[in-house]
């Protein structure tokens, strides 16, 4: 992996996940009780041995991401040589529009000045634990020009995405950006591997010919004549760019095999910012079934089929079912929530009842008291 540098792209369209991204990019969405989405791309890079990581910051809302990543120390990326680099966007001028391609283009210097041969670009919107050494080996074995990492979708999704049709050996027969995704399709996890030279060429050409979208203008439009392959990731993955996908993917963490494969791989943990939260306290009356519970919680009531983030209090007689409850929330005595997503610091006061549906969970925004 000494031959590979990487870019983490935090810019992403948020149309389908507006409620959760009002003051944060998708990359810093809380996930699985204690993580933020960016942790998955970054951890896979670091545990695969990548030591030179550029983080392409979004146009705005970068506070939460900077607070999370800081010096990169938690990922062993605070280094004298290489390590973590923040690549801020250049302010658009003359009516130009901000875009991921523009962001990459104006930071190409960073790529060109690095001495690695390959560039791995990953968008921080997917959940996975991938050994990128295997992706590099695949890329080299096939003699590919561009390798995109995909996996089979386990649910349909209203959010647009890059779909590929692979041949047996992984060569891509056709690739297209579809407005919505169906179960069983091979969808991109937003991970692209190519030589540094090709990367710089396609980015420069695309942007200088009016392009705005990396996938469309730098990859798809220039794919003709290139050896375009897909590495199909067989382990668990989720693409979190719509509210339903966020909800379903969190609940998917309750499956033991998924939990095990994603988080408990020897030498390949998912790393996140350390907060030194105390172990969770189970009190008199606690009844917890099939749930993922982070540290720092205090549980007096019922929790079923739910993901509970750090420092949540579930008071006596309260019940949480099929829900995703983020950090610092309180569900007061005898309150009940079902099929609900609560953002951080939400309080459900005594005796209140809220119920959504599995395909349409009720979403409660940050700091709200019900």
């Amino acid at each position, binding site marked *: 992996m000494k031959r590979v540098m990487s870019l983490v792209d935090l810019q992403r369209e948020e149309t389908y996940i507006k409620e959760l991204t009002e003051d944060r990019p998708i990359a810093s969405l809380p996930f699985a009780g*204690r993580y933020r989405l960016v942790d998955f791309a970054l951890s896979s890079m670091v545990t695969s041995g990548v030591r030179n990581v550029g983080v392409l910051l979004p146009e705005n809302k970068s506070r939460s991401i900077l607070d999370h990543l800081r010096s990169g120390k938690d990922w062993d990326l605070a280094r004298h040589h290489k390590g973590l680099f923040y690549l801020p966007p250049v302010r658009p001028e003359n009516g130009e529009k901000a875009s991921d391609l523009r962001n990459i283009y104006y930071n190409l210097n960073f790529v060109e000045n690095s001495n690695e041969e390959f560039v791995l670009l990953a968008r921080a919107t997917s959940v996975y634990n991938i050994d990128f050494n295997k992706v590099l080996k695949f890329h080299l074995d096939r003699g590919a020009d561009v390798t995109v990492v995909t996996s089979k979708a386990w649910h349909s999704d209203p959010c647009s995405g890059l779909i590929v049709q692979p041949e047996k050996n992984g060569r891509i027969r056709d690739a297209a950006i579809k407005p919505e995704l169906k179960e069983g399709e091979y969808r991109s996890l937003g991970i692209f591997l190519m030589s540094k030279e090709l990367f710089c060429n396609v980015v420069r050409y695309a942007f200088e010919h009016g392009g705005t979208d990396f996938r469309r203008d730098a990859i798809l439009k220039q794919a003709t004549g290139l050896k375009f392959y897909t590495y199909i990731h067989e382990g668990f993955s989720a693409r979190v760019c719509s509210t339903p996908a966020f909800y379903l993917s969190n609940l998917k963490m309750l499956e033991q095999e998924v939990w095990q494969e994603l988080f408990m791989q020897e030498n390949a943990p*998912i790393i996140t910012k350390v907060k030194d939260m105390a172990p969770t306290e189970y009190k008199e009356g606690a009844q917890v079934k099939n749930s993922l519970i*982070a540290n720092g919680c205090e549980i007096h009531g019922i929790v079923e089929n739910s993901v509970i983030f750090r420092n949540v209090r579930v008071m006596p007689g309260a019940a949480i079912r099929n829900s995703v409850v983020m950090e610092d929330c309180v569900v007061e005595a005898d309150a009940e929530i079902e099929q609900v997503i609560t953002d951080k610091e939400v309080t459900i006061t005594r005796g209140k009842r809220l119920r959504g549906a599995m395909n349409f969970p009720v979403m409660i925004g940050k700091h709200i008291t019900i």
Partner: protein
Amino acid sequence: MKTRCLAMILAGGQGSRLGVLTAKVAKPAVPFGGKYRIIDFPLSNCAHSGIERVGVLTQYRPFELNNYLGNGNAWDLDGREGGVFILPPYARAKGADWYSGTADAIYQNLNFVEMSDPDYVLILSGDHIYSMDYSKMLDAHIGKGAEATIGVIRVPMEEASRFGILDAEPDGRITRFTEKPAQPTSDLASMGIYIFTKDFLRDYLVEDAKREESSHDFGKDIIPKMLADGAKLYSYSFDGYWKDVGTIESLWQANMDFLADEPPIDFGGHWRIHSANPSLPPHYIGPEAEVSHALLNEGAVVLGTVAHSVISSGVRIGKGAKVTDSVVMPFAVIEDGAVVDHAILGPHTKVEPGARVKGTPDSIAVTGENEVVKAAG
């Protein structure tokens, strides 16, 4: 380089009364409370008290402890000039010696003390569970113009003979100190926490090192000598939770103390206990699990029943397994149908399907690191 107050943590003891739990690690590295190790408590106290330079004196089985401490980053003790310094016995031109007592350990590191150039030296031990603001004790030391200040706590009179007991005047001036007295004259016990004005301490350590009949121990030799000389020794009263966890029973009991409705220390509060931890996901509670009155840490999987127990990182509790009144240390595995009651399971213990580890409140069952418990028959 100037340091106001240098802390020295005595972490070299074998902790032989902890039996198999310290067969492979020093006592300060023994896990506690589901997430911590004993040494996290004095280290976190130092970090929160504004003490930025800490020497850790190690001797017995130091590797795991050294590995755990690393560069001190987990406790924010990795500043440019501060930090955690691991101080094992070392060889000099005239040979090498093990640390023969608590005072000797500091004496052998006087070079390090002088290099740090502190005004005051805080001596701590690595075997107590407590949260304490040492800066207040230092203020008291300075305010009274003391040469030595000893942290004290009131203990039940019937237990007093297990401690170093001291008599003090109403203003705190210490008049008498007796290590483990048969007939205690007061209930003020030394916590093994001392602040010394540095030059004063150095002179006594140098003098004590020359005395062949000395056991080179703070409680037995240094403090009594200072008192005999009429030095200004004061007590500093601490009234929070403080627990010596030097025996299996006291380690078990201290863990159980944190299952109370109001735990004696808020691990995650403003005086947060820091620790160095592997990156593990939130714990998972299975569809048929039952968990109550318990502390659970990250990475654990519970498919069976847990009641009144402390479950550490990465522990697995299988279907139908039952864990009651126990402390399960990191990465222990309790397989389907196994029973664990009134026990401490050491790290990576494996209790096979249907096997039992049963103790009683008076005699806690213990397993050592990597021990495998097979089912009877």
